[in-house]
């Protein structure tokens, strides 16, 4: 008897029917979990309380892995209840990776974030746990005002500031001497800085008096321009956050200062970013730069002598831009209790905060932590540091609201245009303000 063969059409029909049945049954299965249910947390908690809790911590400075490992070892040596597993993430990629992990239901328990903009991104979207839930007094401690303000919403702190940085003026004492200037008397005003820069530039070939950032990027406009803008009494954005106001007479005076620096040959006509500024300074060819403290160790190791002082004052005084880093406990972390323990260890214990900041070349985020003996000893051994600590007292946060980075880029472009003589300060400022207002309006609308 001939074996009945299954025709190809029949086979395909059977296959199609089977696939459809599989698809329907998959769709009818329990829906994908939106995130850990409240009940799940309560179920997990008793098990964690009994033995060692293991938490996940994302660290955003892989190049400082050795210093960070020392901190982790210190944490583990201090107690046995919590163990933190560390994941190193390239700093610039943290927003993308963290956002994906949160949306995908696999966030870390805690993460180190740098700067108000990135912190705000996750706080404003409800991903950061309120630290007051663990320590109701946390808002009363002596935090740097700018740092505390940036992480507080509705009276609760949503991240633990653990380090800070301000700008100070670092200058090359050897070049000052060669230019006939007294290294013990650095410039205290912006006008004096222009004079000094011109004299140093005139003192030798391929030598320049002062570097500041001129690259058309957000760092130039957001982190460095405010030093000059505030010195002339200007502001980036109005108090109500609705209007760009850096194109004021004060802003014009600030941008004119850049032009004066170039016209008096205090600085070469070129794009300078933070990396280039430091590299050129370390060659010994630059008289001074206003910079954050992370570079102190490299400057101290140069083959010439440097000193530091508060950033020179303008007509309205001297206010240094403040930067800071935090440890944020993620609200959806599976073991956020472990995240809190690590954040508390670094942020609320003076000696640990000192160790953290000494390891990374930063400054403590709490004013009283600077009195810790280990920090005092560190300051004594690193003569460039005290000026930074002093500058913290009159530091403020640059604008970090909606559109902060893009607005900073527009300001950076304006500075570049003035430095290269492509536009007058007035024209550059007006163009930047127009573009920035559009950005601000758009971002404010998105934020609701």
């Amino acid at each position, binding site marked *: 008897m001939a074996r009945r063969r299954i025709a190809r059409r029949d086979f395909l029909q059977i296959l199609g029917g089977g696939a459809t049945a599989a698809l329907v049954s998959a769709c009818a299965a329990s829906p*994908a979990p939106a995130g850990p249910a409240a009940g799940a947390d309560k179920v997990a908690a008793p098990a964690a309380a009994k033995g060692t809790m293991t938490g*996940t911590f994302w660290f955003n*400075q*892989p*190049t*400082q892995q050795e210093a960070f490992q020392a901190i982790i070892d210190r944490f583990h040596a201090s107690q046995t209840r919590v163990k933190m597993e560390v*994941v*190193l*993430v*390239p*700093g*610039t*990629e943290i927003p*993308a*990776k963290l956002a*994906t*992990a949160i*949306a*995908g*239901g*696999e966030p870390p328990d805690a993460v180190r974030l740098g700067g108000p903009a990135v912190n705000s991104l996750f706080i404003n979207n409800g991903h950061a746990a309120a630290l007051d839930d663990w320590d109701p007094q946390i808002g009363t401690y002596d935090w740097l005002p700018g740092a505390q303000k940036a992480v507080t919403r509705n009276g609760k702190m949503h991240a633990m500031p653990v380090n800070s940085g301000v700008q100070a003026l670092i200058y090359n004492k050897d070049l000052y001497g060669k230019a006939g200037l007294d290294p013990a008397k650095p410039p205290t005003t912006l006008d004096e800085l222009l004079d000094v820069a011109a004299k140093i530039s005139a003192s030798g070939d391929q030598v320049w008096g002062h570097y500041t950032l001129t690259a058309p990027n957000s760092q130039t406009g957001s982190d460095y321009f405010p030093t000059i803008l505030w010195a002339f009494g200007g502001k980036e954005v109005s108090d109500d956050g609705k209007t760009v106001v850096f194109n004021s007479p004060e802003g014009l005076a600030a941008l004119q200062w850049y032009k004066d620096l170039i016209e008096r040959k205090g600085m*070469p006509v*070129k794009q300078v970013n933070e*990396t*280039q500024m430091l*590299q*050129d300074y*370390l*060659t010994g060819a630059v008289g001074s730069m206003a910079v954050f403290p*992370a570079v102190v160790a*490299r400057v101290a190791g140069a083959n010439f002598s440097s000193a530091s002082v508060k950033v020179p004052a303008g007509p309205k005084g001297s206010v240094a831009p403040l930067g800071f880093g935090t440890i944020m406990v993620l609200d959806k972390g599976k073991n956020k209790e472990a995240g809190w323990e690590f954040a508390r260890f670094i942020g609320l214990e003076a000696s640990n905060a000192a160790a953290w900041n000494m390891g990374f*070349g930063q400054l403590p985020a709490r004013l009283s932590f600077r009195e810790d003996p280990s920090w005092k000893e560190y300051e004594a051994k690193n003569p460039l540091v005290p000026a930074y600590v002093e500058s913290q007292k009159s530091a403020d946060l640059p604008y970090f609201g909606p559109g902060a980075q893009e607005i900073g880029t527009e300001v950076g472009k304006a500075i570049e245009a003035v430095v290269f003589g492509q536009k007058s300060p007035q024209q550059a400022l007006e163009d930047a303000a127009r573009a920035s207002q559009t950005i601000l309006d758009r971002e404010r609308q998105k934020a609701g």
Partner: protein
Amino acid sequence: MATQVAIPAARPRVGARARHRLGRAGVYVFLVAGALVFLLPYVWMISASIKPEADVFQTGLNPIPREIRWQNYADVWRQYPLGRWLLNTFLVASIETISTVTTSVLAGFAFARLRFWGRDALFYLYLGAMMVPIQVTLIPSFIIVRQLGLLNTYQGIAVIHLVQFFGVFLMRQFLLNIPSELEDAARIDGCSWFRVLWQIVLPISMPAVAALSILAFTAGWNDFLWPLVVINKPDIMTIIVGLASMRGEATPWGLLMAATTISALPLTVIYLFFQRWFTEGITMSGIKG
């Protein structure tokens, strides 16, 4: 008496030849200039990789270092798990390449030769899917991979690139250029479609397969965003993610450029060996739209 007409001697076509040479010279000048522009970043990369740190950002191009520091290569190999990163990347890129080529050949042949209901609609759906950037599918893909338990695994990195629509498109376009008479003869002789593909079509499709292999391997080697989000363990980090982790507040630029040069070497070697097939495959795929 026949009238003799003096025929003027043919004028040499000097003008046309000279214009032709001038035109070709202009084209070559343009191409060389363009090549130099594209080569400039590589020149800077290699130059920076053998400079001391303080010289990396000196003003001006300075392609020839004042002091050559080969030690950068030894240092980066010692200080970073470069070998592990390269091995991980090679493994993942190889898996993706083999899978992409296999699925693309099969699917491309089906779209080019087989007739089935909805064939063209399905193909245009594939084309549409090619336009969707990875940022849109990143989170759904992450959720799926997480639920499959593939986070922090080689499979998790490779899984979303096992089938690549561009490969299907490339193979289909190439196969449409091949005359169907060969296959018709084979089919008349009783060959199955799979045998036609394996014994007739595939051997003459090697240029396209080679081109696709190079493209798929390159894409797998250079992939950054997806490995970044699925990898948390340093021992399965790929080379591009590893290079990104070398950047920070104190980036060792000389070492980073040395590592980047090392990471670019395998692709450069592969392309140099297979460039004839690569060009042939891409060209033939583009003849018939």
